């Protein structure tokens, strides 16, 4: 199991964890540190008022918004939606933690989740364009806002980030075109995911500790 797979599977950890997850955590300090931090958040969560938990209306409105933007599609009656899964996840052991993880990771995961789990074969056959988060803003920022932040904090780095953003956006656009051309191409889908991860990393580096 890789670090990415572990982090994507965190929502599935209940009271214990799977043998695979435990094996990875035993050997990976960065993931075990992440899990420790999540555990701390969860330990603190009961102190929060129950009333502060988002109501089903919140999840519904997010779901409607995502549908309107074409990021997810209506599901069959017996098929759970991404948001209902997210809502149920919020009641699981890692629920509060999931609400606390960075918005960037959330947007990436929503994109991957919608693409990989919720596209039915019928949708693929119809050749509908993939619903992904290409236009979604990561961490609540769009590219221009990110560059503005960098200009404010560290003007010398702005040109580097602008160039990197252009490159990674090209990467996403090319990867998306290949997936659109052949939605069954697993490698292409993986490439698209990696392109988004590169952009996620860019935002992370910009906003993380390495930026002075």
């Amino acid at each position, binding site marked *: 199991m890789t670090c990415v797979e572990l982090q994507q599977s965190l929502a599935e950890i209940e009271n214990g964890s799977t043998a695979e997850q435990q094996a990875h955590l035993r050997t990976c300090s960065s993931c075990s540190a992440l899990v420790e931090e999540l555990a701390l958040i969860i330990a603190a969560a009961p102190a929060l008022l129950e009333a502060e938990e988002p109501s089903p209306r919140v999840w519904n409105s997010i779901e409607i918004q995502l549908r309107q933007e074409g990021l997810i599609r209506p599901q069959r009656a017996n098929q759970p939606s991404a948001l209902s899964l997210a809502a149920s996840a919020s009641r699981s052991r890692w629920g509060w933690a999931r609400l606390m993880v960075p918005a960037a990771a959330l947007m990436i995961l929503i994109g991957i989740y919608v693409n990989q789990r919720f596209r039915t074969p019928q949708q693929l056959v119809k050749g509908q364009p993939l619903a992904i988060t290409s236009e979604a803003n990561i961490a609540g920022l769009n590219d221009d806002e990110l560059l503005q932040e960098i200009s404010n904090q560290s003007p010398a780095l702005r040109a580097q980030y602008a160039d990197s953003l252009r490159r990674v956006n090209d990467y996403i656009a090319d990867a998306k075109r290949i997936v659109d051309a052949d939605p069954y191409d*697993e490698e292409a889908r993986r*490439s698209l995911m990696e392109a988004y991860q*590169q952009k996620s990393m860019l935002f992370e580096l910009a906003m993380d*500790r390495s930026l002075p």
Partner: protein
Amino acid sequence: MSGRTIKLVALSVMVAGTLLAENRKEYRFNVGPKASVSVNNPYGSISVRPSSGNTVVVNALLHSDKVEVDNTQTANRVYIQSHLLPGADANSGQVDYEVLVPTDASITLHSSTGQLYAEKLHGDVTMEGTASPVNARDLSNAHVHVKTLNGAVTLRNVQDGHVEVDSLSGEVTLNGVNGPLVQVVSTSGNIVYIGDFGSSGEYRLTSHSGDIEATIPETTSADVSARSVRGEVHDDIPLQPKTHTSFVIQQGRAFAGTMGRAAVSSTVVLRTFSGKIHLKKRADK
């Protein structure tokens, strides 16, 4: 006083001023097995080498009084942070660190511009930087995670590693790197692999527009799949072609096959969108 003497005096004053402004500090921490050491340094280099005992030694060279070093130890974790004071910039805020850690310690290094370096460790290594060149060598049984924007990454002699490198545009060079997982993802940087792909690992080298070059001995055992959407692929080593692949083999754009003994082979995936892929045979000495 001659002109030459005046110049010498002026130079001496400048050197003395620089030395006065520079400030060396040393910090020592006693730690247990598998300690965790984190160094966050916006400007400046960080080098990590093994110490002889269960001690973490941090030598910091501060380039001005516009920066301080915050240090804390919580149980088996040591945190070092360069603390920029008002008015600090890339020069005055610079700190260069030389850190000695027990060989089994896990380290996390952050810098924006300075070189990140680690050697001879077998704990986990995480290195993140914006323009920082990243170098690591002689690591074993470690998770090695590297993230850079445009700094070059060079890993040399990493054995049984769980290696994940993400770089936007920096060149990535892996020399003698093997393990269960070796993965490089780059947007536009070239990727160079020199080695033998181990015996049973998964090797994924992906770049959007960068070139990928793998130089391996002819005795390598590996299942190799290479594909460039718009670029070219070249293969100097004869492969036994695969009858079934997950993609259409387009001549000059992709190849897939097995070399050496399939039973003990690693899986090698080379992918680029517009770059070139070259699987080269290592010249025997």
